[in-house]
């Protein structure tokens, strides 16, 4: 049984100027341990889809089942209790952290809300989670504004992981970060995926990132999924014209540079 299953999920935004079908009848499934990449341009509805999965936005129709649980059938209170198992990391790290709380308060809050552990146990859990995402204990009493963008995003990841979730939606977690930092955040996420056996839904507009990070990819265009399949297959031999245009528009950095550069680096170190 897949860990996450969406059937014919639709979300229509109604504005005074008419209706916009942000997500239009999407059916998807994600196996446990898999990483599904959702790729699309701005306005394709990919972020809305991420929020629909976690019911941060109420769908108009369709069904969302996670770990055999019909998410849409839950009452508000039940949903709140379940949230610790299904988490999200946002695109803008600074905006997604409450500026008035310390890092410890931010990471501890999911535990407090879920009533997990005593005060001392929670403290320990926060500490180990922060270390796991690459932040030392020094950060505990700082506030988000005193951290760099990459560090803020690590806090966001720690907050999502502190309750030991099974499914994490990553909504463009690296798109607002610098290249070198982007790479190290992705490595952290990959390491955590292996050590904690996490299932990711990775939303992105960057083909290169998806190529390196995801096992399966779904291409979204105007609220619909136009193509889905194993990443290598989809990116090497795209079937849908939209996927083709997307891939041909990408500007790769000269591929052979990598090997040469690596040897060069090794040469320097030795």
């Amino acid at each position, binding site marked *: 049984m897949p860990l996450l299953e969406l059937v014919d999920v639709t979300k229509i935004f109604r504005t005074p100027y008419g209706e916009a079908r942000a997500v239009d009848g999407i059916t998807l499934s994600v196996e446990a341990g898999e990483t599904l990449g959702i790729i699309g341009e701005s306005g394709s509805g990919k972020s809305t889809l991420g929020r629909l999965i976690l019911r*941060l936005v109420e769908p108009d129709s369709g069904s969302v089942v996670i770990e055999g649980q019909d998410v849409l059938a839950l009452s508000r209170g039940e949903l*709140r209790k379940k949230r610790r198992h299904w988490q999200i990391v946002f695109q*803008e790290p600074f*905006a*997604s952290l409450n*500026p*008035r709380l310390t890092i410890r308060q931010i990471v501890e809050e*999911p535990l407090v*809300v879920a009533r997990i552990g005593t005060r001392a146990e929670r403290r320990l859990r926060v500490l180990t989670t922060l270390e796991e995402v690459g932040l030392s204990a020094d950060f505990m009493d700082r506030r988000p*504004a005193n951290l760099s963008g990459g560090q803020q995003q690590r806090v966001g990841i720690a907050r999502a992981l502190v309750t030991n979730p099974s499914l994490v939606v990553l909504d463009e977690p690296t798109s607002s970060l610098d290249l070198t930092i982007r790479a190290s955040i992705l490595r952290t996420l990959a390491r955590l995926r292996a050590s904690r056996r996490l299932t990711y839904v990775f939303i992105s507009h960057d083909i290169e990132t998806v190529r390196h990070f995801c096992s399966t990819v779904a291409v979204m265009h105007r609220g619909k999924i136009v193509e889905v399949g194993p990443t290598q297959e989809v990116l090497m031999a795209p079937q849908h014209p939209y996927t083709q245009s997307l891939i041909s528009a990408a500007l790769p950095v000269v591929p052979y540079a990598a090997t040469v550069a690596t040897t060069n680096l090794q040469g320097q170190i030795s």
Partner: protein
Amino acid sequence: MTSLGGRASNWAKQSRAWAYKRSGTVLVVVAAGIIVGLPLAAILLRLPQNPLQPDVESMALAPNTVHWFGTDGNGMDVFSRTIESARLDLPISLAATAIALVIGVPLGLFATTGMAGEAIMRVVDAFAALPIIVIAVVSIQLMGGGATDVILAIALVAAPRFVRLSRAAAISLRSSRYVEAAVAIGCSPIRVAFNHIFRNAYGVILVQATLTTAGALSTIAALNFLGVGVKPPQPSWGAMIEDGVSMLIRGQWWAVAFPSLALLVVIGSLNIIAGAIENKMERVEHTR
């Protein structure tokens, strides 16, 4: 990026920066001292002259060693009366602001949606269209005219501003990313409201409260100047100024100048404190 300059110029710059920063702090401490100290002085200290004692022997005297600020047309000591006014004027404006806050903020924070929210906003809008002084005068007349009535009238006039402000803050915060994040980790609506929305909105509200206190002080002075509100012989800055106008026209400036100066200093102090809070809030949020 690195800091520049030789050791000497660096030191000079640092000390200048320190003095710059310090001068702001000193200003705020002085301002706070005035706001707290004046009413305390009026209550605790023995004033050099009885502020309520007319004296036909010494009418309209210029400032001298006995009457530091001179005397008014009834021969009352201007210095003592100026200090004594703080006993009522400041607490009244603080109380009025507090009441306006208690009424306005919850209304604004929780009336963001639905028919009730719309209705409240329309009332707030209608209030904004009315001349404030007239409303204040009418409501004081309506209720009688004691200190409590003045407090209630000013609170009534100031409350809509808090409704508008806290509602705007709540609406913008409600759509913020970190409130969405709080929902995503399973916070209850009450936890979201207090831990995330109020915690970030109280700065603006505090600033507005300080400014409202300044505004209340000014309105009270205007009311007393027009002869509404606190009744004589209890002195108030507005009434003292009104009494002194005829002297002013004759060139005897002190009966108007000193209560005016007191008003200016106290309102100015409140404005300085509001500015300092605003700066502090900005610094916490935008250190980057």
